[in-house]
């Protein structure tokens, strides 16, 4: 696979209209780059940018962190367990 699997949860899945998608990435891509592509594909997500967090392969990641083909990226609204 030369892309990443993107999982969306909670309000982010609602806004995107999907719980899962795939996006191509090149070798120098960051979470920030991936976000731009995702928001282009699902513009409903754009207003949520400031409250979203990201995880790569199950661990929290920052916008400047790298993603590589084959990674699983999760788009996480503010958690509200408990």
């Amino acid at each position, binding site marked *: 696979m030369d892309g990443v699997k993107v999982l969306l949860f909670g309000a982010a899945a609602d806004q995107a209209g999907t719980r899962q998608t795939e996006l191509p990435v090149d070798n120098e891509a960051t979470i920030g780059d991936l976000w731009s592509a995702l928001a282009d594909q699902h513009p409903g997500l754009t207003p949520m940018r400031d409250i979203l967090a990201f995880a790569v392969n*199950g661990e929290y990641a920052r916008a400047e962190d790298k993603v590589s083909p084959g990674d699983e990226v999760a788009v996480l609204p503010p*958690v*509200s367990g408990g």
Partner: protein
Amino acid sequence: MFRIVEGPIDVGALVTGAFRPDCGAVATFVGTTRVDSSSGASVEYLEYEAYRPMADRKLEEIGAEIEERWEVKHVSIVHRLGRVEAGEPSVVIAVASPRRGPAFEASRYAIERIKETVPIWKREVWSDGYVWVGSQTGTRSPA
């Protein structure tokens, strides 16, 4: 014991399972579905979803943080997913310690950390639509 489950939590078994002869104190916390109401509408139930297995691992990390910080001999956290009716438990925490101070502090720490770091989300399903708690978006028209 750290577990995410899809059905009702056996709260009694979780609490009594924390009793140990080397501990004098068991503090527990249970989060239950509270029925809120506003302008004629009310919450009917909560619905939880999680990003697994990250959520499972985050619960275990909270357990490890507690064992680093306090003298505790037992920590259990169970979180439920799916539909949870009014007054039913969504999360149960049980901590046993030789002394009561650490038991109280650790159980409180556990619920605060769950609300900060564990990728679980709830929506309040009202009689007139739903709201994602924390994101404040959904199908319910703003008050």
